[in-house]
């Protein structure tokens, strides 16, 4: 079959979305390969979205066992049926995801993502990591950046009713349509490491407070050698102490990182399913945009908080700061 043209089956199945983004975009999607690591609720939502959208292939990494906690925000695996025949979380998810769209290849890669060689990533158009440590985030991001091929890199995490998405498209060129004109636009993205190194004081006023609070928690988990989300309200005092150190260290006014927000984030570390749906939806759209070259991609952080209901984009980069 001619791979340049969509098949009749594809045209029928994707009819409604082709009406949104066009045939070319659909064709590019069907040739893309996505890697995800960490099958938490947000990632499961994301996987559903891009499998439905019709990417070429999806590779899952998560060797952890299937247990009650793992499936709390996961609609791919039945609650209470925890054994799954000794399958890993990624394997159990793969079996369910395959059913969503027979035209997408869904597979599992075993092992620890942080030990994979650089050339492993060459197969992928986009890499999404979730639920991993600060060090792993930075490491994978750097590995993707070192490849000749441009690999889009994303992180996504949900802590209770709050969530964060990070996007690194490196140097990204696309055509922007404004009324009847098309303008060539280029965006330069910082790496995760570069972004989080921008001094807080140099950032524009009114940057989402979630940005700072999540950096404090991330740092806290790193120094305490905890996994992402392995925190509780018991940690409040030490987390507040760390926050003060970080703020003082860069002469940043502490009121920008409210104690109440840190307290809320520590109170509950489970993913809130509606927030997973929202983050998985936004991330799905971003990956589709990046692959299809259609639409303005977000640069470079997205925050959602169910408490105020706002979904905000922040540009955290040296370019956009007073550095």
């Amino acid at each position, binding site marked *: 079959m001619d791979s340049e043209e969509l098949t009749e089956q594809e*045209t*029928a*199945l994707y*009819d*409604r*979305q*082709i*009406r*949104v*983004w*066009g*045939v070319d975009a659909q064709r590019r999607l069907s040739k893309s390969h996505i890697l995800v690591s960490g099958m938490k609720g947000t990632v499961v*939502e994301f996987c*559903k*979205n891009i499998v*439905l*959208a*019709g990417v070429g292939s999806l590779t899952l990494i998560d060797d952890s066992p299937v247990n009650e906690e793992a*499936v*709390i*925000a*996961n*609609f791919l695996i*039945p*609650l*209470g049926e925890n054994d799954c025949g000794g399958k890993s979380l990624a394997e159990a998810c793969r079996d369910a995801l395959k059913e*969503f769209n*027979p035209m997408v290849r869904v597979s599992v890669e075993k092992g620890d993502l942080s030990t994979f060689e650089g050339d492993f990533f060459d197969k992928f158009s986009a890499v999404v990591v979730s639920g991993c440590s600060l060090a792993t985030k930075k490491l994978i991001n750097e590995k993707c950046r070192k490849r000749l091929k441009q690999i889009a890199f994303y992180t996504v995490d949900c802590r*209770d*009713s709050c969530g964060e998405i990070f996007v690194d498209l490196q140097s990204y060129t696309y055509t922007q*349509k404004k*009324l009847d004109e098309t303008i060539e636009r280029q965006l330069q993205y910082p790496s995760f490491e570069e972004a989080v190194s921008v001094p807080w004081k140099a950032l524009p006023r*009114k940057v989402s407070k979630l940005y700072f609070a999540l950096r404090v928690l991330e740092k806290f988990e790193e120094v305490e050698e905890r996994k992402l989300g392995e925190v509780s309200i018991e940690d409040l005092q030490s987390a507040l102490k760390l926050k003060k150190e970080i703020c003082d260290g860069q002469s940043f006014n502490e009121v920008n990182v409210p104690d109440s927000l840190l307290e809320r984030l520590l109170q*509950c570390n*489970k993913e*809130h*399913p*509606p*927030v*997973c*749906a*929202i983050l998985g*939806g*936004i991330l*799905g*759209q971003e990956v*589709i945009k990046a692959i299809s070259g*259609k*639409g303005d991609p*977000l640069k470079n952080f*997205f925050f*959602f908080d*169910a408490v*105020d*209901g*706002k*979904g*905000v*984009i*922040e540009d955290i980069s040296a370019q956009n700061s007073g550095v």
Partner: protein
Amino acid sequence: MASDQELEPIKNAKVLMVGAGGIGCELLKTLALSGFTDIHIIDMDTIEVSNLNRQFLFRQSHVGQSKAKVARDAVLRFRPQINITPYHANVKDPEFNVDFFKQFNVVLNGLDNLDARRHVNRLCLAADVPLVESGTTGFLGQVTVHIKGQTECYECQPKPAPKTYPVCTITSTPSKFVHCIVWAKDLLFAKLFGDKNQDNDLNVRSSDSANSSESAEDVFERRKDEDIEQYGQRIYDHVFGYNIEVALGNEETWKSRNRPKPIYSRDILLDKPFHQNGNLNKDSETDDASSVSAMVCLGLKNPQDIWSLVENSRVFLESLKLFFTKRAKDVGNLIFDKDDQLAVEFVTAAANIRASSFGIPMHSLFEAKGIAGNIVHAVATTNAIIAGLIVIEAIKVLRNERNKLRMTYCLEHPSRKMLLMPVEPFEPNKSCYVCSETPLSLEINTSCSKLRDFVEKIVRNKLGMNFPLIMHGSALLYEVGDDLEDDMVANYAANLEKVLAELPSPVTGGTMLTVEDLQQEFTCCINIMHREEFDEEKEPDGMVLSGWIQARTAENGERSAVTNGESTSKSSNTAVLEEENDEIEIITTEVSVIPSGAKRKLAEISVDSNSVNSLAASDLVSKKSLDHGDGNNAVVMIDDEELEGIKKKRLR
């Protein structure tokens, strides 16, 4: 969030979901994951192939089955211990009355059409149950919360209404492709293949009077011993050739317009034999009637291609022929259906030939199908986001956190950095005829309009009532119901045909009518004002309802009735139901639609409220920014100037 105490209201809640489509699938999944245990779900639809790209609870093997039931089974697979009650039924069915609605703590809408939304709104008001309403188009979406007496109801603000086109634009002076589609679908297709007894304006504008239109009637009848190919060519030449010549005779019309050119089949298909490489004869015996396709017969494959005039002419003749040969039993009672391949082929070809005649760019079958079928732009991600937002609001409703409720807009382009923008709900509109008791007024010619006109055009079409009861004082003029006595039925039938002023209890200027829908438990009063004359083009109904919030028209192919063509709008109302959540309503702050200076307050959406004015209209306009926005969608729009006004008002 997840402490047991906080989960209690969720666990104990009984919720009703209306709609198991794009939003519905996502919503049911998210509700189940969030800890809801008693969910009822109503949907009248069955599953179609084009649903599968986003309605992820459904598989190929489910095509044709009830959405509500399949969705239930799919969710029980990952949350077996919860209760989901499906209803494969229309939410407008009488069993879903006020008492039915009263059993729920909150109602969540994932609906696809205005009529059903209005209906559910009224039932929620009557039952005093909070409603969370939603809609998506492409990357845009919104969630709103409606609580009786506290926030505006779904009908407090104007809604986009189907776009209608003046009859002469369709019959004589098309300037856009959509006009050609409406002509091809509502006039030509209906004339050739639909109910012969329906009114049809196809030949209405030929300049002469009675006798020419009478003879024109005959043109569409197949003559005795006329073979099907001759017949097709004769129809072709009549509608694309002769009718255009007649129209050209009306010089006045073309003074300020480009003159169309008549097209005759012999000129187009000259030395191109009609019969060619088709596989019609080969496969004809095995073809099942529903899969008959002119494209297949003519070897045209890609629905994205724009056919040449020759190809369109061939498709036109071939599809017409196939209708009369392969689907003869359907002819005479066909209604256009976007899932009927042959009908789409015919309409595409006819619209393109007409477009070519009028110098309008031609379109592919894929595009024509979208316009003719009013196909909404739908993607999975937006539905997932909107469903998440619905659940967040539903939880606040259940926890009684009334001051935290928000309406949220999902935008394609950020506005003040926001992709998801929460806004405080508005107060009820004091002059809303649905949730307040403000009477409406109706200008009508009481000495020539019949009660039937009033019932059809106002009570059903404008007020959206299904089981109306009309009273003048204590006198019953009309009523619909299953349990009426025969003599009452006869009496009402007789009343329908009477002119208002000649009813047993005469309705004239100054009369106050009470109109009630027993199922919706909704009543409103209408002041009748007599008026002699109405402008045919501007007031095609021959009556003007005011006090009623006039819906703004959305550019919209499907539901476009040709002026007062009740027949077309009726058939398409039902057709729309199978599509999903279509309209994003217009968030308008226009004073004109909100009487008596009841300016809306844009809520404090952030601490830095003085930047409200940066929420520019351009940030929120949806359609223009959609690459494929071809006019099917309503627009999200906030008037910049108005916001400026609001800001000033609030700062005072």
